[in-house]
């Protein structure tokens, strides 16, 4: 995502507002629309702020409490922007047995943040996630939706540095 944490709410950003409106008009009419709309907003905007939740509630004619209930129930929905790059550690059984916690230790050392946090420059967010179903390649780290399998702690610092460096070049 291109938004940085100190930017406007997506509702106040004309380009984002357009994405939000078109998402609601595209998916708002069907049965069970709330989940579908929220899923697409999460994907297109990257997060669903409280003002966005209220806006969706009004447009779909459901209570804000219901929208918030759904957003807070599912782990895929986030209410705050993440960093530009998302590094997710799979902690499914195979990855756990295969050394995922060592990779997390290494990431903490390199970046100085815990899973769930974002680096102060807004570049990288660390997260742990449920099994991504790539168990034969354990341990798996998902960087911006690309799976990296059989990652060793010794390679991992270099992978992270590459993610940081790619930013400098761009």
């Amino acid at each position, binding site marked *: 995502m291109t938004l940085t944490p100190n930017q406007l709410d997506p509702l106040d950003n004309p380009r984002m507002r357009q994405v939000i409106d078109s998402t609601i008009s595209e998916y708002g009419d069907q*049965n069970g629309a709330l989940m579908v709309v929220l899923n697409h907003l999460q994907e297109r905007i990257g997060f669903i702020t409280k003002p966005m939740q209220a806006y969706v509630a009004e447009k779909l004619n459901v209570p804000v409490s219901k929208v918030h209930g759904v957003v807070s129930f599912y782990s895929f929905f986030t209410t705050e922007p993440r960093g530009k790059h998302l590094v997710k550690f799979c902690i499914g059984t195979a990855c756990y*047995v295969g*050394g995922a916690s060592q990779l997390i230790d290494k990431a903490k050392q390199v970046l100085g943040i815990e899973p769930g946090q974002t680096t102060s420059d807004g570049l990288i967010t660390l997260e742990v996630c449920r099994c991504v179903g790539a168990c034969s390649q354990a341990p798996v780290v998902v960087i*911006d939706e690309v799976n990296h399998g059989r990652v060793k702690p010794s390679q991992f610092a270099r992978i992270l540095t590459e993610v940081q460096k790619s930013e400098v070049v761009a």
Partner: protein
Amino acid sequence: MAYYRSTVLVSMDPVCIDKGALDVKEQLIKELAKHNLSEEVQVLDIPRVGDPDTDGPDILVYPEGSHYIQLTPATVGPIVMEHFIKGRELQQYKAQMRDVTDEELGEPKDKEIRIILENIGKIDPRNIEDYIAVDGYQALAKVLSEMSPEDVIQTILDSKLRGRGGAGFPTGLKWKFARQAPDTPKYMVCNADEGDPGAFMNRKVLEGDPHSVLEGMIIGAYAVGANQGYIYCRAEYPIAVSTLNIAIKQAREYGLLGKDILGSGFDFDIEVRMGAGAFVCGEETALLASIEGNRGEPRVRPPFPASKGLWGKPTNINNVETYANVPKIIFRGLEWYTSMGSEKSKGTKTFALAGDVANTGLIEVPLGMTLREIIYDIGGGIKEGKAFKAVQTGGPMGGCLPASNLDLPVDYETLGAAGSIMGSGGMIVMDEDTCMVDIARFFMEFTQDESCGKCVPCRVGTRRILEILERICAGKGVPEDIPLLRELCSEIIQDSLCGLGQGAPNPVISTMKHFLDEYEAHIYEKRCPAKVCRSLITFEILADKCTGCTVCARNCPVSAITGERKQTHVINTEICIRCGICKQVCNFDAVVIK
């Protein structure tokens, strides 16, 4: 019926839109029209193709799979000219091919029988004609032209096909109940919320052979009398979702979905709904709540979904693999199908072999094969010649089975009697270096986090179990913990509403049953026999083996290792977090756990 020879997927990520994806799409449509290709090439939006930051705006062209990146309206013309008119890829805008080797699914091993996995890797999942070429949709044609709904249900009953999601309920019976329900409309739902860690059979089927699932669903819908279907797929599987959407679109174009399917007068359509990362949504009533747009909380059964499901209407729910079995049974016949499997469990089952086994990946075997055959003959035994300790089947609601259970046949009843479950098919093999208390703690961490919170025994009980297990792993366990765990487990099983709560204690119960000595070692001797639990171990460097190569010191995440080059290194146990990286990177086996 419209038939397109190519499909262009345009990435509609916000970043791509920002970089001009809409203009690129508009120009693309103009260029195609200019060359009279509008009837032959369709243009679709897709949330994202490549990395929007580096690739966008980008398009993906099927069936070739060509990925053109960094497009502008000006570059669209040459691509249309070269790709669609001259039939060659324009290298200068093409992304480098990514490695797509399918290492999850090698050649079938000797004892495998592949029915569900048969087509995967052999057909192009994004081209319906590939599926039709391998007898796809033949079963549907037979059903619609020759069989009554009752015939179909009877055939599935006779096949003894049982739910592959893990519970093993007879599929034919489920369909019969849904057919008999008086209310209308009826719904057909496919549970593709494969949440068990360590299981990825369904993902592979959805990504590699989506039409087999669609065909099974359409046949089932005809039998049950449903006109609308939903596939509920977990959000962790974006590729499966996009493959399914392409398959559904193509099936509609071929008249296999929609109104008047194959001229039979039967209407049925399917929509994909995405989950959002909640494990409990694999439970059928929670799944239905989620499709309805609510929090995924299970409800009391009865009424079962067959009488009151989606929006209060009769609903049939089956797992991906169950549906994929249906066309095979109809097309190849009962005799063939029932020749495989055991007395009560017919057919095959896919498993995801993972963990400390030599050959990891997907396998498919006739039901009733022993664990030993699966792990040793197909899986190639334990990695690095280590000793087998346990196999975990059935995911977080399953159990750990020890070496003494290796000769048990894998079917619903036997695994259930042994204290585990069949589950959806995750099979994680653990070697001697695995601590069973730690594994129980790992699963309990999972279930207490995924508990939806609706009922107290599960919400609070799993949390209490986790605290006790954490205490034991930290070397602070007390003798009373063992009876306390037993009591908690039985209360949670008895008083929880859904399968998650009722199954949550299984990993604890099964490890306490088969590996009680490990619990006792942690509690009484403050010792972790497998040398895993961090509070109970220390790392040391052997002076006679250390060459002073500095690899360990450079890799230590907390800089706890000191030493000059070519001198023996030392670990400061005060700083050491016992992550074990030093042991892993040492080339001279100089790091030992005490």
